C-alpha cells in the first residue's frame, strides 16, 4: 500500500500531541442569549434574515420539541442535559467579506492553519475578495485532486471554496443559509423531506435551532468534478452546534462528499445535534464519508462532545445508490445511525463503519436499511474497537417490506476488545416480510490475537505500532472504501485513538 509511508509520517506527527485539534480560537463571538425559547429561535432566524416560511417551520419544530421526550433506549449514560444552559448560536463576529488576507483576524487564520487548510483555500473560506479564482489556480497548478471546502465554524458556515468552478459544472455548493435565499424552491422542496421535523428529539431540536450547514445540488446527469468537503468545528464555550446538511443528487448525478469534525478541549460537554439529509433520484449516486474526531473528553470522562446526529438517505429513484462511510474516533458520546430508505427499485444502500472508543467514550452507532422497492440491495460492514473503559454498541435495523421482492442484505459486524474493562455489544434488528429476499447477518466478538501481536513485535514493531497495524488490518474492508484523502488520515487517527490502550 503506497499510503503506508505517509501514514507513518502522519502518525509520527499526531503522536507528539494526542489531540492536536484541541485548541481554542480567541476571537470575538456573537451569541444568542443563553437558553432555548421561542425567542432564541426567532433570534437565529432573524440573524439569518430568513423568509417567513422558514421561521414558521422552525417554530413548529420548537413547539413539537417541547412536547418530546429525550430518547433513553441507547446504551449510553450521561447526566441529564440542561438545554437551557447552552448557547444555541455563536458566530465569529463580523463574518463579512474581507478585502484582503491582511484584514482577517490572525486568530482565525491560525485556526485554519492548525486544521491543515492551505492558505489559498483559507482565503476563500474567509471570504477574501477574488480569492476563489486564485485558489483554483493554485490547486490546478499542483495538479492535485481538487476538493471544495465549506467550513462551518461554530454555527456559521464561513465560506465555500471553488464556488465558481462548481458553478460552471452546474453544481450548487453553498451554506444552507445562503441557499435559502438563492434557491428557495429547492430548499422548500427537499428540506425536511428525508428527516421530517418531527422525526426524533434531536432532529426536531436541530430543526428549531439549526444555524448553518451545507447545501449541495447536483443537476441531472452531472458528475461533480471534485470531492466536496465540509469542516465542522465547535469553538465557543458552552455552544451547541446544530448544522444541517442537505444533498440532492438529481437523475444520473454523482457526488462524493467528505465531512471532517473537530472541537477544542473543554471541561464541559458540548452538544452537537446535526441533521444530514441525502436525496438520490433515478440513477444518482451519493458517497458520504465522515471522519469524526470531536474532542472525546479526558481520560476521566470529563468534557467531550455529545454527538447526537440524525443522518438519513432517501434513495427515491430507480437504480440510485447511497454509500455511507464513517470513521468515528471522537466524541464522549456518539448516538448516530446513518440510514438508507431504499424506495426506488434496484436502489442500493451501503454502510461502512469503523468506530473506536477508548478512555470513557461511549458509542451507540449503526445503521438502518429499509427495503421498500424491488431488488434493493444493502450492505453493512461495521468494525467496532473498544479499549480502555469505553462501551460500544452496534445497533442496526434491516427491514424488508412485503413489496421488496428480490431484496438482498449482507451484514457483518465485528467487534474487537482491547482490555477487560470495556464492553462491546451488538444489537441488530432484522425484519423480513417477503419470501423473495435474502438476508444474511454475521457478528463476531474477539480480542487481538496474541500470536499476531507477538509476530509483529518480533519484526521490530513496538507494542502500540503492532496494535495499530493489526487494528488497521481488522478495519481494512472499511478503510478501502474511504476516499484517498481520508484513508491516510483515518489510519493515523486509529492509532492515536488507541494510544495508551495496551500495556
Amino acid at each position, binding site marked *: 500500500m503506497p499510503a503506508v509511508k505517509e501514514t507513518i509520517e502522519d502518525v509520527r506527527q499526531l503522536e507528539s500531541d494526542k489531540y492536536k485539534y484541541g485548541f481554542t480560537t480567541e476571537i470575538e463571538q456573537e451569541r444568542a442569549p443563553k437558553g432555548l425559547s421561542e425567542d432564541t429561535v426567532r433570534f437565529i432566524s432573524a440573524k439569518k434574515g430568513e423568509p417567513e416560511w422558514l421561521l414558521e417551520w422552525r417554530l413548529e419544530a420548537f413547539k413539537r420539541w417541547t412536547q418530546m421526550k429525550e430518547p433513553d433506549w441507547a446504551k449510553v449514560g450521561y447526566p441529564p442535559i440542561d438545554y437551557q444552559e447552552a448557547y444555541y448560536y455563536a458566530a465569529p463576529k463580523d463574518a463579512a467579506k474581507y478585502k484582503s488576507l491582511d484584514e482577517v483576524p490572525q486568530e482565525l487564520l491560525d485556526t485554519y492553519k492548525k486544521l491543515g487548510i492551505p492558505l489559498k483555500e483559507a482565503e476563500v473560506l474567509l471570504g477574501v475578495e477574488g480569492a476563489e479564482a486564485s485558489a483554483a489556480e493554485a490547486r490546478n497548478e499542483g495538479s492535485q485532486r481538487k476538493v471544495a471546502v465549506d467550513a462551518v465554524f461554530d454555527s456559521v458556515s464561513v465560506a465555500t471554496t471553488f464556488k465558481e468552478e462548481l458553478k460552471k459544472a452546474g453544481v450548487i455548493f453553498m451554506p444552507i443559509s445562503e441557499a435559502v435565499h438563492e434557491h428557495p424552491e429547492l430548499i422548500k422542496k427537499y428540506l425536511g423531506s428525508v428527516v421530517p421535523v418531527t422525526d426524533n428529539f434531536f432532529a426536531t431540536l436541530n430543526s428549531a435551532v439549526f444555524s448553518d450547514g451545507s447545501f449541495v445540488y447536483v443537476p441531472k446527469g452531472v458528475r461533480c468534478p471534485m470531492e466536496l468537503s465540509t469542516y465542522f468545528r465547535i469553538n465557543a464555550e458552552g455552544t451547541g452546534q446544530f448544522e444541517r446538511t442537505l444533498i440532492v443528487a438529481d437523475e444520473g448525478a454523482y457526488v462524493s462528499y467528505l465531512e471532517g469534525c473537530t472541537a477544542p478541549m473543554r471541561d464541559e460537554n458540548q452538544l452537537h445535534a446535526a441533521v444530514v439529509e441525502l436525496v438520490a433520484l433515478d440513477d444518482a449516486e451519493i458517497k458520504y464519508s465522515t471522519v469524526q474526531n470531536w474532542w472525546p473528553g479526558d481520560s476521566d470522562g470529563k468534557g467531550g462532545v455529545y454527538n447526537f446526529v440524525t443522518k438519513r438517505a432517501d434513495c427515491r429513484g430507480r437504480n440510485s445508490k447511497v454509500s455511507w462511510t464513517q470513521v468515528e474516533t471522537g466524541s464522549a458520546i456518539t448516538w448516530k445511525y446513518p440510514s438508507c430508505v431504499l424506495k426506488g427499485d434496484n436502489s442500493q444502500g451501503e454502510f461502512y463503519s469503523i468506530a473506536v472508543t477508548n478512555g470513557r467514550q461511549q458509542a451507540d452507532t449503526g445503521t438502518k436499511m429499509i427495503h421498500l422497492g424491488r431488488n434493493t440491495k444493502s450492505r453493512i460492514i461495521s468494525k467496532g474497537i473498544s479499549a480502555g473503559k469505553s462501551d460500544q454498541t452496534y445497533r442496526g435495523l434491516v427491514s*424488508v417490506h412485503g413489496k421488496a421482492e428480490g431484496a438482498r442484505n449482507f451484514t457483518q459486524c465485528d467487534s474487537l476488545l482491547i482490555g477487560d474493562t470495556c464492553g462491546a455489544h451488538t444489537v441488530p434488528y432484522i425484519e423480513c416480510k417477503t*419470501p423473495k429476499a435474502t*438476508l*444474511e447477518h454475521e457478528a463476531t466478538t474477539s*480480542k487481538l490475537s496474541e500470536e499476531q501481536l507477538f509476530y509483529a513485535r518480533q519484526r521490530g514493531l513496538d507494542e502500540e505500532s503492532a496494535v495499530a497495524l493489526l487494528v488497521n488490518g481488522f478495519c481494512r474492508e472499511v478503510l478501502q472504501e474511504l476516499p484517498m484523502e481520508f484513508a491516510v488520515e483515518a489510519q493515523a487517527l486509529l492509532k492515536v485513538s488507541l494510544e495508551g490502550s495496551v500495556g
Partner: protein
Amino acid sequence: MTVALKLTDMETALIDQLPQDAPLRAVLSEHGLPHRRVEEWKWTDLRTVVGKLPAEPGVLTFTISREPDAWAEQDEEPSLLMPRLASALGEDIQVYTLEDGERLELGLEASSGVSNQQVLVLVPEGVKAELVESYAVEPDGFANLTLVIVVMPGAELDRVIEQHASPDAALVVTSLIDLAPGAKLNQTTLGFGAKLARLETHVSHAGEGAELQLDGAYVLDEGLHLDQTSLVRHEGPNGVTKELFKGAAARGAKGVFQGKIHVEQAAQKTDAQMQHRGLLLDDKAEIDAKPELEIYADDVVCAHGNAFGALDEDALFYMRQRGLPESKARALLTQSFLAEPIERIRDEDDRERLLARLMVGLEALS
C-alpha cells in the same frame, strides 16, 4: 408526555384477583401487560392479543409421569413481570427433584380462560435426567407458566419441549434456569405457535466447564405466532453456549427470534455461538430476529449469525430434474432445513418422535 394507560378488561380482571397490598397491582395498573412499545416485546404484542380473550379463570390439566415431590410457597418474588404474575395468581409451586436416570414427563393443557402456574425442577449434583414437556391451550385460553429449573454442579439435563398449535389462544412459558459450574443442559423446542405464543428462556450460566445447548425449530401456519426469546448470562469463565434455531412461516404466520448472550467481565474464555435461520414460505409470512451480544470480557469467542431467505432454487431445480414433483421437492428441502436442531436431540426416541411431529406439521403446510 405520558398518557394514562386505559386498562383492558383482562388487565382489570388480573388486578382484581391480586391481594390489595400486592406491589404488582401498581405495576400492572401503570404499565399493563407487555406490549410492542416495551422493547423486549416489540414483535409480540401480548397486551393486545389477550385483551380480546375472556378474563374468567381457566383450568390447567397436568399430565405428569408422577406426582410432585412437594408443593411450595413462593419465598422470593421473581423480577420479570410474567413470572411475577404466575407466582401471584397461580397455585403453590409444584416441586420436582429428579433422580439419576429419571425421565419426567410434564404435559400441560390449558382450557379457555386465564391460568397461571409455577413449576420448580431440581436436578441435584451429579444427576443425569430428562425433562419432557408439552404445552397446548384451547381456544380462548391464556396460559402463563413459569418453570424454574436448577441444574446443580456436574448434573446433566436433557430438556425436550413440544408446543402444540393453539389457534385463538395465548401462551407464555418462561423458563428461569440456573446452570451451575460443570453442569450441562441440552434444550430443544419444537413449536407450532398460537394466536400468540412466547417461549422465553433465561439461563444463568456459571461457566467453569458448564455447557448449554439451546435449540429450537418452529413451523408456523395460518396466522399463528411464535416468539422464542432467550437470554444467556455467562457469569463465570470457561462456559460454552451453542444455540441453533430454525423455523418456517407461511400464510400470515409470524416467527420471532430474540436471542441475547451476555458475557460478564468475569466470564473470560467464554465460547458462545448463536445461529438463527428463517424460511419464509409465502408473501404473507413474516419473520423478525434480534440476535444480540453484550460483552464485557475480552478473551472470548462469541458469534451470532442470522439468515432469512427462500428455498434454494438450484436445489429445487436439481430435484425436479431427477423426477420429483415440485411440491415434493419443496417439502423435502424444507424438512431437511428444519430437522437440523431436532436431530441434535440426544435421546433417540424423543428425536424420532419430534421428527415425526415436524413432518406432520410440514404436511399440513402443503
